[in-house]
């Protein structure tokens, strides 16, 4: 076959490909423009409805209402000006939407990425659709939605996207949720954005009362049990633990325990020999993707693990999980803290009825009864203890 014929064949193939692209593109464009028209009309209707209730506070210029803004300082220390009312929020950072739902403004979460699928789909029937945008949303896709606000994290991975969105005039707040104070400041910032400052304070005070309770109870304890936090990572095919700089480890310390891996940083793989050297009194199992029952099985079926003190004493507990591990930096962390108290110091926390506290929490903040929430793990520890 000659080169000429080949180049001819290639150019024919290229032309065919172009034609297909053009046809597909125009069909897609027609489809999109229909959908875009629909969303525009509905959002305009919604906007006019809200502005009419606010006419007393807005000045009118030539018939058009001047846009109101809410200004917040985000975790970067940057002042962000957000146009009101905020009705469409895109979350690039999966830790953000749970706190929107906590604040009762989950309906403003338009889409993006979020953790805790199994729980938040109970709160919001549209949740699964909303997180369909995936973890690395395309910038034009975001522009298409015309969000009033995009939520990202301060992490470096987001920086390119954040500066691009800002250059397009889309307000972006960056959050950071790595310790309790950052959770508080994130909640109060969200409170300010959605005009729910008072409710945000109620939530923060609720959290603070639990922290105070736990702190006063563990103040007097003399021995701090050694704790190993464990999860199975499907991606690494191994058991992993959390170092001292992680939120989960900080909660363990707050609840009067010592993280045996406190000297490590971040998430790290563990082997049984190192665990034997640490010899933890208590093992806490959490789960990401791979269920905790598998991790539990792995430990129970491995003779090497039987020599570990926690396994010998039957003190291997699965952290309550409803779609989110209670000890993760999620809205349920305070329940997790209380649970940790009960596990680490059962005597001091004898009077705490965790089931009652949890039932109250879910009813109060998510309007769900305990029977609707599917909680797995050792919620009631006292009976599980041998």
């Amino acid at each position, binding site marked *: *076959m000659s*080169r000429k014929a*080949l*180049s001819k064949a*290639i*150019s024919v193939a*290229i032309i065919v490909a*172009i034609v297909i*692209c053009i046809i597909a*593109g125009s069909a*897609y*464009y027609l489809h*999109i*423009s229909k959908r875009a028209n629909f969303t525009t009309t509905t959002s305009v209707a919604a906007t006019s409805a809200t502005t009419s209730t606010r006419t007393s506070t807005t000045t009118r210029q030539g018939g058009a209402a001047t846009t109101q803004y809410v200004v917040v300082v985000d975790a970067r220390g940057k002042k962000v000006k957000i146009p009101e009312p905020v009705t469409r929020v895109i979350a690039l950072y999966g830790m953000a939407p749970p706190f929107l739902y906590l604040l009762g403004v989950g309906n403003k979460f338009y889409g993006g990425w979020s953790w805790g699928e199994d729980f938040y789909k109970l709160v919001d029937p549209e949740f699964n659709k909303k997180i*369909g*945008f*995936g*973890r*690395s*949303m*395309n*910038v*034009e*896709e975001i*522009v*298409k939605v015309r969000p009033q606000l995009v939520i990202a*994290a*301060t*992490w*470096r*991975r987001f*920086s*390119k*996207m954040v*500066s*691009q969105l800002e*250059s*397009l*005039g889309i307000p972006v707040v960056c959050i950071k949720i*790595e310790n309790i104070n950052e959770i508080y400041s994130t909640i109060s910032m969200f409170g300010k954005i959605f005009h729910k400052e008072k409710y945000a304070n109620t939530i923060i005070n609720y959290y603070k009362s639990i922290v105070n309770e736990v702190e006063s109870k563990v103040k007097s304890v003399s021995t701090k049990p050694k704790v190993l936090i464990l999860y199975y990572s499907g991606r690494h095919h191994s058991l992993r633990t959390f170092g001292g*700089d992680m939120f989960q480890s900080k909660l363990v310390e707050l609840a009067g325990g010592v993280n045996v891996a406190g000297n490590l*940083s*971040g*998430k790290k793989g563990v082997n049984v020999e190192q665990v034997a050297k640490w010899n933890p009194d208590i093992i806490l199992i959490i789960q990401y993707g791979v269920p905790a029952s598998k991790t539990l099985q792995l430990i129970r079926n491995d003779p090497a693990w039987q020599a570990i003190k926690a396994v010998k004493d039957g003190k291997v507990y699965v952290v309550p999980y409803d779609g989110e591990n209670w000890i993760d930096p999620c809205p349920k962390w305070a329940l997790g803290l209380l649970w940790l108290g009960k596990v680490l110091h059962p005597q001091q926390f004898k009077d705490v009825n965790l089931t009652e506290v949890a039932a109250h929490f879910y009813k109060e903040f998510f309007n769900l009864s305990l029977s609707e929430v599917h909680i797995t793990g050792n919620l009631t520890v006292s009976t599980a203890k041998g």
Partner: protein
Amino acid sequence: MDKAILKLTVFFIFLFITSLSVGRLLFPPWHANALDRTIITYVRLPRVAAASLTGAALGLAGVALQNIFRNYLAGPGILGVTSGSAFGAVLAILLLPPNPAAVQLTAFVFGLMAMLLAYYLARLAGGGILALILAGIVTSALFSACVGMVKYMADPYNKLPAMVYWLLGSFAGTKWSDLAPAVPPLLIGVVTLLLLRWVLNVLSLGDDEAVALGVNVGLFRALTIVAATLATSASTSLAGMIAWVGVVSPHIARLLVGYDNRRLVPASALVGATLLLFCDDLARTLSAAELPLSVMTNFVGAPILFAILVRRRACLAGS
């Protein structure tokens, strides 16, 4: 000007313009509003320009290295430059404050180091094509191990995701300000290689013939290697690791214009630019989430290379 190259140029320009008018936000370019114009000038144009330049640079680096080392399997990835650049970049992310220019500089320095190491190891191993390939594998493995070590030491929130993002390769979020620092080294590499295209013909003959023709082999070889490394590491620092484009583009170009480097070199640049631009278009338009660029280049590159190998065999058998 050559007819095939002219065709390639026209096709590339066509694809360039098409790329500017497609995206997740579809609008007819002939009546674009202010937002649409912003999207074109500040989102699509820098990205399309970056993809084209990077593709051209990788295609050129590939064809230059294939000639220098007289091995059609050679490419920036195979000789360890990409792994070296990757190591330099993750090291910069780990140790230095956030600064794209620093990442780029270390990526370049380590890319050059990897290339020299591979070359030196090949010499130690006795020279020849096989020694070179093996030395490239050794260098790649060494730097990949170093990358793994650095990733292990990085914190899981801030630096590790930044590294992973970088290693996967992506043009997402490319702004004019990201493109600016990468353009000078890219352009220097691209222009140098384009100017050196006649030398490549001589160098590919082998040292003895080149010397007999009165060419300063050492100087031009060093110049070509530096230019190729400059182009590769600059593109790696702009978009992360991009597989296949550097190896595949020269092969496609060879089929279109033949083996004469005076035509092959510009054709490789055009094919590289077209190929990477096309892959990036797919990566940013196929779904609401960005697809990893390396996945796209593998999907597109691997079958093309295979088809070419089959065709080439048919050509050889037929002639």
